[in-house]
């Protein structure tokens, strides 16, 4: 059984930029422990010398013409942004 503690869940939530409450951390730890336990059986499959599959369509390194294409409408993009300043998207300060 994989050992998960609240600290690992907190570390993962930091990596994923995900704010979690204490109750959520507890619940997620128990759910993930249960799920990861079921995954253990994978280790019994012999994969020596087998290459990984990252996708199934037989196309690789697709190139396209380097040419001008239509851009999206600036206004439609800005209309979606929660906060704007003129033609810019405004965010909270990056430094404290």
């Amino acid at each position, binding site marked *: 059984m994989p050992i998960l503690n609240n600290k690992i869940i907190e570390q993962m939530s930091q990596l*994923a930029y995900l*704010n979690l409450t204490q109750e959520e951390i507890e619940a997620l730890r128990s759910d993930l422990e249960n799920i990861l336990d079921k995954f253990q059986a994978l280790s019994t499959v012999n994969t020596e010398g087998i290459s990984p*599959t990252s996708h*199934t369509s037989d196309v690789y390194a697709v190139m396209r013409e380097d040419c001008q294409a239509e851009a999206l409408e600036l206004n439609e993009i800005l209309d979606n942004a929660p906060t704007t300043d003129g033609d810019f998207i405004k965010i909270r*300060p990056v430094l404290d």
Partner: protein
Amino acid sequence: MAKEIYYKTIRQIRKLLDDREISSTELTKTVLNRSYRINKDINSVITHTEDLAIKSAEAADKRISEGNQHLMTGIPVMIKDNISTQGIETTAGSKILAGYKPPFDATVIKRLKNVDAVICGKTNLDEFAMGSSTENSAYGATRNPWDIDKVPGGSSGGSAAGVAAGQCIIALGSDTGGSIRQPSAFCGVSGMKPTYGLISRYGLIAFGSSLDQIGPVARSVEDCSIVLNTISSKDTNDATSMKRPFENFGENLGEHIKGVKIGIPKEYLVDGIQPSIKQAFEKSLQILESNGADLKEISLPLTDHSLSVYYIIAPSEASSNLARYDGVKYGISIQNARNSVESTFLTRGQGFGQEVKRRILLGTYALSAGYYDAYYSKAQKVRTLIRQEFSAAFETFDVLVTPTAPTTAFGLGTKIGDPYEMYLSDICTIPINIAGLPAISIPAGLDNKMPIGLQIIGPQMGDQIVLQVASNYEKSTNWNQKTPLI
């Protein structure tokens, strides 16, 4: 035919439109009225797009009067709400995208608009297509039109329930691990996931990019093929898209299946399968056999590992894909924060639901240093073996046939508390996405008034034979003509 117009197929409606027995505008209004009324009971539609629909219907009527219509011109369709529609709110069933109006159309939407199909609404789904019951939506659960105390399946539950209840003639869904086929089975409609790469994913809000595929939910196998012919294209905006190696998905519809070799993978008749599903499946096999197919049991021993492979790869890809939701560019944003990073933490904490958080953490864990080899890398290698196992099977067989799901639709709230139990409801559909194969679910029985689905799986690019076998079966039964009493 006495059947109400909103329960007809594309082919039947095409004739009515072309013979001017009804206009697309009249049809669209009838379907929208039906949809508004039904939606109060089953919540299958998040947004009705009435203005767009009426405008499109008028354009369709003009096109029909000019005589240059396409099979889908003037046909009312609905779109899963994780497919981008320009200027129309697209939520992916998540609070984090509330209010987001994409500045562009997905490629499949462009193709539907090109033929003047009539987009009537955006359908409900599990948040970011993560779920098997459409209970994980921030916009409320969808209910099954056959029994509103049961789930419609998921994640394309809104699309399947909408087609089943006559809220549209066809719908688009997306399928990452069964999200078109399992709800189609639960709602008694036909739903197909084509070969990975045949439909552009441009504008589909990404979940598991190597597994995601858009496809149709419809009332007949022929309707599935008509939609696929309309939306399939090679698209420079999706580098994994491919030109289909055949012209017409439905080329072989109506042809016999004498001598077609059908494999029955025994691992799909899992422990705990509902007895009525097994009985309906055996009956389906008898029909295929009496139609001349050559049936034989086979073994695909890696099937048991598919669920683990999927629930490592899909959340890993999701944890990366969902990194873009930072509260800066669109959707909700928690501004009451000291700095930008804190704002992102809080926005994501409040904007994502529990299942999405669970999968982001699972994926982050599987990709993180120290666990990568044991989980992600291992799963990708087993994925190779699963593909090889299917390839070997298709050296002998033309198609494989299985039940679509081990149960009929389950009660609302009965599995939501146990994530792994919920994951098990996709046990028969997940292996197909892992291998990128085409597969369809078609209606194949009723148990206590709840629909049962039959899944037909083909080799890569074998979409035509899947549709041929499905259509042959459909013509021997009348399961696809059953409608719910709603």
